[in-house]
């Protein structure tokens, strides 16, 4: 029965209307309005879904690891209410301001502490910094084979078989276990939390680990453990002007739109 680990990040809701997010350029920080609530990174919910499908088929257990600060318990517990078994939070001021390298260092140490496992499953990218580095970096640091952009994950005969999304279709790749997988949205909708799941999750207490708990020095994580530095954070200015085409009816507006494109030599 496979032992599965999922890495899930708390991010500001990426479906918030464009433009609601602001940047404090003097502090190089993102300013989130209260209207944008934190959620589990959508791809990571799909990583949980991939793990749950394996558990449905084969049994086993799912441990979720989330690294961050100000982790909202009702948000980060969502994987538990979907059916995951355990939650570990890497939460400490020392983790603040890290990059992919420091994030991977901390997650790798936590995974080693968890002990034996068959698969680590990550999302293809986090919806805030959109880097797409952590899963692949983890595989390198842990010395694991890695298959990225999975749309289907199966485990059989001690091996993992993955349908990996490529630009014009998919390829089927197999690997020995243990291995690391990153999942893409083609995997399909994650399941809803059930009432039973929510009740069970509310009773579970996540483990909270500091750098010392995973055998790391504070200098290896967060801002001091970075390899890349943020020089500038800003918002592009847009000079938007849309010419609205109107007519007696919306059908006429459609016709006039075509005419306008012709006079503007667009078609």
């Amino acid at each position, binding site marked *: 029965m496979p032992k599965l680990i999922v890495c899930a990040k708390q991010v500001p809701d990426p479906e918030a209307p464009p433009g609601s997010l602001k940047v404090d350029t003097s502090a190089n920080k993102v300013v989130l309005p209260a209207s944008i609530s934190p959620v589990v990174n959508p791809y990571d919910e799909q990583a949980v879904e991939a793990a749950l499908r394996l558990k449905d088929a084969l049994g086993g257990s799912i441990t979720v690891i989330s690294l961050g600060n100000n982790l909202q318990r009702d948000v980060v517990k969502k994987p538990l209410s979907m059916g995951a078994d355990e939650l570990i939070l890497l939460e400490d001021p020392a983790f603040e301001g890290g990059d992919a390298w420091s994030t991977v260092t901390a997650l790798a140490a936590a995974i080693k502490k968890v002990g034996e496992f068959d698969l680590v499953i990550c999302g293809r990218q986090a919806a805030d910094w959109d880097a797409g580095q952590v899963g692949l970096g983890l595989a390198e640091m842990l010395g694991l084979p890695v298959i990225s952009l999975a749309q289907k994950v199966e485990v059989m005969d001690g091996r993992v078989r993955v349908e990996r999304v490529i630009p014009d279709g998919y390829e089927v790749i197999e690997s020995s276990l243990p291995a690391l997988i990153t999942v893409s949205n083609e995997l399909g909708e994650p399941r809803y939390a059930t009432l039973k799941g929510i009740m069970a999750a509310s009773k579970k207490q996540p483990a909270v680990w500091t750098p010392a708990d995973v055998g790391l020095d504070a200098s290896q994580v967060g801002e001091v453990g970075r390899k*890349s530095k943020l020089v500038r954070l800003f918002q592009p200015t847009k000079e938007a002007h849309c010419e609205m085409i109107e007519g007696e009816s919306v059908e006429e507006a459609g016709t006039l739109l075509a005419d306008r494109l012709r006079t503007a030599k667009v078609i």
Partner: protein
Amino acid sequence: MASPLSVLITAEVNEGNLSPITLELLGSARDLAGKLGGQVGCALLGSGVADVAQQIIAHGADHVVVIDVPALQDYLSDTYTSVMETVVRQTDPEIVLMGHTSMGRDLGPRLAFRLGAGLATDCIELDIDNSSKQLLATRPVYGGNARATFATDTHPQMATVRSKAMTPLPPDPSRQGETVTLSTMPDLTVGLTLSDRVKEEVKGVKLEDAPVVLGGGRGLGGPEGFQQLDDLARALKGAVGATRAACDNGWWPASSQVGLTGKIVAPDLYIAIALSGSSQHMAGCSGSKTIIAINKDPEANIFKESQYGVVGDYRQVLPAFAKRVKDLLEK
């Protein structure tokens, strides 16, 4: 090599042809190397690819490292990472660039972690800092709602670059460059096995190359709406793309998703129909010359991204628009 290698890029070859991203990377690499006073190298990995080395030189490379072996026929994470690690160690470039493509998304982070190098992914602007001479790599973050510029103290410094963000140089067939091979090959036996590859047939014009793209969204309500788009696309010799919402619903193939995690298109005309214009979708089409929108919600963000717009139900607007377009094209 006489002068130091400033920039090493990784080439991509598709069915014997250099991919556009390679020419874009070469254009950017020349600019950066000019600012650093060094040379441009290119790693050419594949099977039966050696022929394109001269073209790579014509587009701006001074050195091409050719690794032309059957084992590199298909991109496989393990083999490509090992070979690229060897190429970087042998050529010792200051900067390593690759496309933020299917290959670069996988290879870039692995190579960076193997080399202990700082990496910025999906960059749209690259520059050299005047005083530190470090690479300044700018990339969209928060789904395109903000931009961040990164630098790193590591050697090498790495970046993956978004398609269509950089400008290629016109080819100069008289340019001189040298072709080299690897002095030692890494072990290419792999743990991963590629057992199958399932490709969707693309009919008509390829989405990334189409001069006109019709983008359909959730508001189309089902696959029938996409048939209308497809019909108009044929008349315009264009292609149909879709938002993730539409692809996730199975209304149009996932391989035609446009956006941050889909294809990047930059056609002369992008016709956005019944899609809201989320920042993640716009990441894949904001480079279009002209964007027009048909949406029933006057407040939809897509109107902030468009030059021309009609507010209305696409079921009424689109047939009239399509009919007039066809009439105009026949004239």
